[in-house]
Each structure stands twice: as structure tokens, then as C-alpha cells.
């Protein structure tokens, strides 16, 4: 990476780290402790921004998938792969924080409440997305199938939401937020969103470098001609 860009990246992450630290301090000192649940409730301020950002990352996968199928340029695939990784990571955090919350609020690590079930299914959807790539060798095939799944998975999300809402919800949770809480929540969105975007960008750049290396390999080594989709050599 050329020096100016590296400087920019460093500055970005330093800013994110500082904001994260600031919001954590804010959480510990400024934000009031919620009456019914106690200190554990504070995990909510991480949970909700991460949840929203999971959707944003999934949306990036969706858009990149469409982009690939439309233009057939490999960088769309690299972007989709990067966003997919971040989606899975963030979704795992949503799931875990949700479970911690649930344990504290209802005494059980797992309940089949709509929200937890939704997080679980979303997590599974995108874990599968990440599993596709290692299963297919041919780059164009891999990109095409991943793209189709990436589109299907995103379209599935509202359907999953509607379906889990039909499940019995024994533990509805709605918490009235005091103004300080709302402010904390808004503040937390900043470092979380920056992290999400930064992770996608970093992973994307890495994918591009990996692919450039693979392409160089393909061009310079004596290998038999690529098998086309009918499994025969040219």
C-alpha cells in the first residue's frame, strides 16, 4: 500500500479506537444503570448497533452479488466475500450479546424467542455463504454461485423476520430509554459503524491482493487449459 493510503488507514483505525474507548468510558460513567436488569443491560448498547451494522454488511453482500452477476468483474466478488465475513462476525456478536442479555433477563442462555431465533437463522444463512467459496475451485463458478446465494440470503431476511414473529414470544422485552441512554446508544453507533466499514475495506483490499497473486500464478505457470462448465478441456 502506498504511504499516503497506509497513513490514512492508520489514522482511521486510531480514530475508531479512540471513539471506542470514549464510548466505553461513557458507558461506564455517564450512562445510568437500568433499574430492572442491572449492569448487564449495558450490553444492549453494543448489541443494537452491531445488529444494525450486520444488516448493512448483508446489504453490501447483496449489492456486490448483484454487481458481480451484472458486470462479471471479480472485484465485486472480492467485495462480497469481504462483506460476508464481516456479516458473520457481527452476527455472531449479536447472537452472543443477545444470549447474555437473555440469561440476565430471563434466566436462560437460550429461548426460542423471535429475536434470538432470528439472530441464529441469520448467522446460519451467512455462515453457509462463507462455506460456499472453499467448496468450489473454479473462480467464475464460485463467484456466480456465491452471488446467487448472496442475493437469495438477503431476500430471505425479511421472510425469516416475518416467520419468527409467528413464534410464541414468552418474554417480550421493551425498555423505556432515558435521554442519557438514547445518547449513549447514538454514540455507540459511531465506532461500531466505523469498525464495520473499516473491516470490510481491509478485507476487501486483502482479497484483491490475493486475487492478483492468483491471476499472476495462472498466467505464468504451465497448467492445462481451464476446464469449462461442461467439465472438459478446451
Amino acid at each position, binding site marked *: 500500500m502506498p504511504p499516503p493510503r497506509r497513513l490514512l488507514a492508520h489514522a482511521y483505525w486510531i480514530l475508531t479506537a479512540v471513539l471506542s474507548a470514549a464510548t466505553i468510558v461513557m458507558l461506564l460513567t455517564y450512562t445510568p444503570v437500568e433499574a430492572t436488569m442491572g449492569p448487564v443491560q449495558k450490553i444492549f448498547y453494543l448489541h443494537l448497533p452491531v445488529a444494525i451494522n450486520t444488516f448493512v454488511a448483508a446489504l453490501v453482500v447483496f449489492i456486490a452479488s448483484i454487481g458481480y*452477476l451484472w458486470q462479471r468483474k471479480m472485484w465485486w466478488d472480492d467485495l462480497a466475500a469481504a462483506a460476508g465475513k464481516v456479516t458473520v462476525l457481527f452476527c455472531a456478536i449479536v447472537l452472543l450479546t443477545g444470549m447474555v442479555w437473555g440469561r440476565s433477563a430471563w434466566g436462560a442462555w437460550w429461548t426460542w424467542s423471535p429475536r434470538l431465533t432470528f439472530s441464529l*437463522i441469520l448467522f*446460519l*444463512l451467512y455462515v*453457509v455463504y462463507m*462455506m*460456499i467459496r472453499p*467448496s*468450489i*475451485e*473454479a473462480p*467464475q*463458478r464460485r463467484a*456466480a*454461485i456465491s452471488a*446467487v*446465494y448472496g*442475493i*437469495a*440470503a438477503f*431476500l*430471505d431476511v425479511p*421472510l*425469516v423476520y*416475518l*416467520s*419468527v*414473529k*409467528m*413464534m410464541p414470544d414468552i418474554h417480550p422485552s421493551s425498555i423505556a430509554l432515558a435521554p442519557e441512554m438514547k445518547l449513549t446508544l447514538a454514540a455507540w453507533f459511531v465506532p461500531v459503524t466505523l469498525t464495520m466499514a473499516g473491516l470490510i475495506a481491509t478485507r476487501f483490499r486483502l482479497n484483491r491482493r490475493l486475487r492478483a497473486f492468483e491471476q499472476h500464478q495462472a498466467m505464468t505457470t504451465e497448467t492445462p487449459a481451464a476446464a*469449462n*462448465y*461442461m*467439465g472438459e478441456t478446451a
Partner: protein
Amino acid sequence: MMAAFRQIVLMTGKDLRIEARGRQTISLVVVLGVLIIVVLGMGLGAGRPVTGFGATAILWVAYLFGGVLCFEKTMAVERNDDALAGLLLAPVDRGAIYAAKLLTNVILMFALAVVVTPVAILLFRFDLSAHPLGFALIMALGMIGFAAVGTLFAAAVSSTRLQGGLLAMLVFPLSLPVVIVSTQMMRRLFQEGEPLGGTGLATLLAFDVIFLVLSWIVFELVLEP
């Protein structure tokens, strides 16, 4: 339009004729389905009657696994001897090829359901008498949506070398809404006596429409590199 419809019927007819010759796919799928029901029945149901809700979930497990096997096999027919190339060479809309495969899969899934459901009812003493048509409608809509997704991805992965398990992995999570909605609707219908609700049916229909349209559009793109 009519021409495309005729071609779809022609291609589905061809698939069903091949199936009728060997009866390979349908027998494998049905036996697998029944085995699953029996295994689950021994584990869950032995002795006490399982609720309608539970029976639906068990049926879905049988349909899911049987279905994936079915989709793999109907697509495999085209992979032998480059038969698919023969179809692609012809003046046939790629969407029509998808529709024909989907129709074949739906018919085979219905055949599976016709055999496996009575077995489940028998083993689990599930009482459908209250709303047999409601049950049939919910399951039919669900199976169509499941087949829509399954047909698309079966075509996508059938040309890759690593098949086994990949198709199931792709299709199961995407199909979860169908499983959840249909089991929940059954619960409301049979246990709580609520009439067939709007949301559930709407969700099932939305699932079917969304994935049918997506598959129709995208099918061509998964058939070529």
C-alpha cells in the same frame, strides 16, 4: 408464451417419462422419507401421541432431506452425456428449462408427500380430521417454495465436483421461513383452533413468489461460468 408453455410441458413430460422407466429417484426419496419418519418416531413419539405441531416439524425433516436428494437426482439426469447442452442448444428459453425442472420436482415432492404423510399420521397418531384441506394447502405452498429454491441451487451446484451435502447446506437455511411458518400455522390451526390466518399465508406466498421470480431471472446465470 404458449410456445414456452408447451416446451415446459414437453420437458417435464420427458423427465417424468425417464422417472417412470427407472423409478430410481422416487423410490430412493420415498424410502429415505419413511426411514426418517420412523427413526424420529422411535425417538420422539414412541408411546405418546405427538402434537400436530411436532408432526409437522417431523414431516418437514423428511421432506427436506428427501427433497434435496430428489433435486440432485433430477438435475443429474441432465449432467449425463451432456444432455443439458442439448437443451441449451435448442431454441428454448432458459427460464422455461427452470420451470420444467421445477414442475418435475414439485410433482415428485407431492408424490413423496402422498406416501410419507399417511405414514407419519399413522405412527404419530396425528389427527388431521379437523382441517385436512388447510393442512394440504399449507404444505403444498411450502413445498413449492422449497422446490423453487432447491431447483435453482441444484442446477448451480450440479456442475461442481463436490456435490454431496453442499446442496443441503445451501437450501436448508434459505427454506427455514417455510418450515417455521407452516409449523406455526399448523399449531394455530390444530391446537388453538384459529382459522388460517392472513400473515402466515401471505408469508408463504411471498416466499414462493420471491424465489420463483429470482430463480427465473437468475437461472441462466448459474448455468454458465
